[in-house]
């Protein structure tokens, strides 16, 4: 559930000099986090809002799980899609619990099920229900409001989540915590997430793949690793700041650069680190321990090896431009 396909999608606003979104064709796989990245005015939010039909494309089609979304009732479609926006957009006259209950109520779930769902979701986003259920949005911090926003978007158990710069107005420390939260939730829930951002670091941290947009068109759609090491053109290269090697290492996950375990691998004396750690952590570990290779662990089991050469390779390619 949650497979999304854009087929030659365009949108020209009446009076617009050029299309806001121009002939976008791409496929977002189920369970994938795709960050749409680009400068302001590049059409990233417009593209996102066509998925829940807040905007209607003037050309092309969008398919959700193979169904052309034009053929669905707009309200029915939207109830199946989680939607998180900047400033959270929480209903100020409703308590936290009432906010979370909006979509389940629209879907006419039985009351006990809604109540159970509220507690489940608040616990999931780490807001203890006993303390937060009956508060009003004005009584929450920005980060807490956005946690409620995420819980509310998840309430109807949608296969796909649209997130429109959800952490744009939140301070850096809280933003990092919320990004971690998204990654944690994603590992539990496996939603398809389409996430609009203009923050490169956020995109590199969260994305399985990044859709780089400029002037309404897709410039490059690839994994963070490939974008950094093989940017399609100078626009992508500059946008990602691909010339800052140490920063790059801090943003790339170990899993993207490691080699698979050789068949004759024996659990040696290599220092270990998690596949989610950054290459910067890896480099630091190699320099600190002087070990020739690191063993990469996933859930405690070795899954790969990483050497200084692997780290170098992940930076050299992009530098050759």
């Amino acid at each position: 559930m949650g497979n999304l396909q854009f087929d030659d999608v365009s949108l020209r606003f009446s009076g617009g000099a050029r299309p806001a979104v121009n002939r976008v064709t791409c496929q977002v796989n189920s369970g994938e986090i795709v960050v749409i990245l680009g400068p302001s005015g590049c059409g990233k939010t417009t593209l996102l809002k066509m998925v829940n039909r807040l905007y209607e494309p003037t050309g092309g089609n969008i398919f959700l799980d193979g169904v052309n979304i034009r053929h669905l009732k707009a309200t029915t479609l939207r109830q199946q899609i989680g939607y998180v926006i900047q400033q959270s957009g929480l209903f100020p006259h409703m308590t936290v619990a009432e906010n979370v209950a909006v979509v389940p109520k629209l879907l006419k779930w039985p009351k006990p099920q809604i109540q159970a769902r509220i507690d489940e979701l608040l616990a999931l986003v780490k807001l203890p229900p006993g303390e937060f259920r009956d508060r009003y949005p004005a009584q929450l911090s920005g980060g807490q409001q956005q946690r409620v926003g995420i819980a509310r978007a998840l309430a109807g158990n949608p296969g796909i989540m649209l997130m429109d710069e959800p952490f744009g107005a939140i301070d850096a420390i809280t933003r990092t915590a919320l990004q971690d939260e998204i990654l944690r939730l994603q590992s539990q829930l496996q939603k398809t997430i389409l996430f609009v951002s203009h923050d490169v670091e956020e995109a590199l941290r969260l994305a399985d793949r990044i859709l780089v947009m400029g002037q309404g068109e897709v410039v490059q759609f690839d994994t963070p690793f490939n974008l950094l090491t093989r940017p399609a053109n100078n626009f992508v290269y500059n946008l990602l700041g691909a010339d800052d090697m140490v920063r790059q290492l801090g943003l790339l996950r170990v899993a993207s650069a490691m080699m698979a375990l050789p068949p004759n691998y024996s659990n040696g004396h290599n220092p270990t680190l998690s596949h989610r750690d950054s290459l910067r952590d890896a480099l630091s570990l190699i320099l600190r321990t002087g070990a020739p290779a690191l063993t990469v662990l996933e859930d405690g089991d070795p899954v790969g090896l990483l050497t200084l050469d692997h780290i170098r390779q992940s930076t050299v390619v992009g530098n050759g431009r």
Partner: protein
Amino acid sequence: MSYLISTPGDVLTLLLQHLRMTGIALGIAIALAVPIALLVTRVRWLAVPVMGGLGILYTIPSLALIIFLVPLFGLNATSVIVAMVLYTQVILVRNLTVGLAGINPAVLEAARGMGMSVSQRWWRVQVPLVLPVFLAGVRIAAIVAIAIATIGAKFNAGGLGKLLFDGIQTNRYDKIVAGAIAVAALALVINGLLLALEHYAQPQRRSQPGQ
């Protein structure tokens, strides 16, 4: 005071007349103002002429306005009620349009994006959010209406104004004082009741901030 105490029956009759006029006028005024405000909100270019026209109406002295209306509706409460309706329009329409425009667009977008229909967005989001602002308008309109109803006594409409005008004509200061006290008390009580209602319509501000 002595008049109030000695003839509570007379004062009560006048008070009820006063309340009846105010109530009818406010009811009609609200029923008119809601569609006008919605129209002005939807059709933007109407805002300037409509608000301008209502604003001009508001500048006409109430006595003059009622005199204008007498040939149309007769020398009775109807003319006074029509004047009250016209006067309160500008207050009600303005509060409602300002209230609707003041709803955070992010909130409305969230409502739409979550799959609420037009009527669900209206009843579950817009109405509860605009209600406190609208009630503030109703409160001011009610005070204005009570004041105009007082002048209504001059036009054979009854009400507490009768005490004032009778008192002036017959040099009965006790009647004048009684009328003034009664009108003021009425205005204060209605104001208090509507203020409580406004407060009640705002659950998010009723509770203590948590930080």
